[in-house]
């Protein structure tokens, strides 16, 4: 046993019935450790919130760090931020926030309100800023609005998972190079993400498909989006809408963070109108793209 006087080297209080006391110590240790982690993280978060004052009438967007080739590796963070820019809503970003109470990103604060989930945030902002989310009423039929909801489902509930699989499970080495971390995190994060993604996909149902089937779903989803877009500038016609934010959020990941993958080959090859669409969205809503991403040219 070590001879120093630190807490960890104090001698055991009891001598007799040592197995029981050891087991109790271990159990107690585990309980204490878990309780302290939970306690500290909650208290720390409350402390941070109390001591931060945000400007009035400015949306505070909590999201992940900037990435090398895209403003965010999360399609939902990119979706929400693109929406804010699309409607010229004043906002600021906090890049080291904890996850929302639902364990997800992004989430926003606005004056005294707090909204989680990109979709609910968009609904809240549309109400607060009186925005017609699917283009000015009149230029988009109610049928088209209904259709755009279905398109968002295709992008966020189907295509998104195939891209997540491609990124975190199939092409983890390329992804590691995209991560804004150094050292141990560069290895631990991909492993953890792969596990999380696979588990979520399995729960969702889509994860029960084989690798080939997942890529077939990806290809058919991209084909559907390409056919829907056709020669139009945006998915519903000549004016951008919420569905474009969702679509851009996911397509940007394929365009700029998955080099050499089948996903990239599809978007830049057979379905090139999607690639042109991404460039159009980037030029319109992210003129400062090269300043925002971390890899400077």
């Amino acid at each position, binding site marked *: 046993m070590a001879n120093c006087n*630190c807490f*960890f080297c104090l001698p055991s209080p009891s001598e007799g019935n040592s197995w029981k006391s050891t087991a109790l110590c271990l159990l107690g240790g585990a309980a*204490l450790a878990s309780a302290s982690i939970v306690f500290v993280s909650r208290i720390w978060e409350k402390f941070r919130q109390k001591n931060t004052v945000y400007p009035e009438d400015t949306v505070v967007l909590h999201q992940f760090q900037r990435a090398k080739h895209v403003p965010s590796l999360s399609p939902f963070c990119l979706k929400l931020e693109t929406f804010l820019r699309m409607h010229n809503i004043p906002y600021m970003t906090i890049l080291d926030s904890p996850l929302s109470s639902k364990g997800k990103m992004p989430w926003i604060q606005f004056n005294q309100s707090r909204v989680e989930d990109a979709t609910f945030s968009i609904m809240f902002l549309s109400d607060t800023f009186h925005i017609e989310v699917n283009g000015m009423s009149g230029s988009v039929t109610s*049928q088209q609005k*209904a259709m755009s909801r279905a398109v968002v489902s*295709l992008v966020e*509930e189907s295509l998104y998972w195939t891209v997540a699989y491609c990124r975190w499970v199939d092409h983890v080495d390329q992804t590691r190079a995209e991560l804004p971390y150094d050292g141990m995190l560069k290895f631990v994060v991909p492993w953890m993400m792969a596990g999380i993604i696979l588990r979520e996909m399995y729960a969702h149902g889509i994860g029960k498909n084989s690798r080939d089937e997942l890529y077939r779903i990806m290809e058919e989803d991209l084909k559907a989006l390409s056919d829907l877009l056709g020669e139009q500038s945006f998915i519903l016609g000549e004016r951008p809408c919420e569905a474009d934010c969702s679509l851009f959020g996911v397509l940007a990941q394929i365009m700029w963070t998955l080099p050499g993958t089948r996903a990239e080959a599809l978007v830049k090859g057979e379905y090139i109108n999607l690639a042109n669409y991404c460039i159009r969205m980037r030029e319109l809503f992210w003129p400062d793209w090269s300043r925002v991403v971390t890899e400077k040219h």
Partner: protein
Amino acid sequence: MSESPGHVQGSLAALYESLQTSVLQLFTDPTQLSPGQAVLVAASALFVGAVVWTCCGGQRWTKVKLRAEFTPGMVYLHTLPAVKAIPCLTPFGIKLETYLRMADIPYEPMYGRSIGPKGKVPWIEYNGEAMGDSGLIMEFLNREKGVDLNRSLSDADKAVGRAFTKMVEENTYWGMAWNRWIDNFDNLHDLFEVSKTVMFFLRPFKGRLQQTMWAHGIGRHSKVDLEGIIEKDLRAISTFLGTKPYLMGDEPTEVDAAVFGQLSELLWTLPGSYLHRIVTVDCPNLQAYCSRIKDRYWPDWDQLTKNAKKTKEDMSLYSEIFSM
């Protein structure tokens, strides 16, 4: 050792050394373990366990027992048996069987005690091979049998059909699952036609569904938010359908099988729920649409549901299905 950067590294190194000592102590002479060492070991074990658990995604593959003899070219459809309320309790079973009837593909229904190769139901056996997932089965049969329910559609319209299929199966579906298994669990014995005792043993699947929906993401919303999402989905279908007989026009296409599969469960197995209200009172065109498809493609609906009888085997089938 007193400068700031070195200080942190020094403490970490000391911590690591103490951990090494503690673990060694645990394995050589645990009786001499101090409380401090016990805490350190337990905390590290928890941390490592958490990382390892996170890194391992859940995957399960089921082994399937196939028929010894089969007729080549015949589709053997494995699906859930009928109850009084509906011919099949899974929307994907109604979808697949409706598709087979729309496409005039001969099939033999098998109400048996087995789950498909992906741990899902319905599934089929075809020429001695098992196949899972209703969507992939439909694609396969389209190629195999030269069928195309979407042949009259433009590429853009096929895309719209795909989008609505995804919405109704990947999003709206969870509204039905939540309402049936979580909100309405205490009345499920009626729908499943079993005793309350049997439902007692199926209770763990309620918790498992909640976990599944949490992992999916949709289960993280409050009940009010979730119901709002589902309502918007149903209204979108109703708006898009409008006064048309079928979703894409005058004749049914593949998306109608998928949408009918989901809506039929809402209409006929969830009486009194907000879902039933939406598809009948709020959006009556959805009820008319379902009746239209039922009358055209399920003339034997009443016969199937009246002859429904429950066996113990069926109960195990349910519990296997819902242990997703």
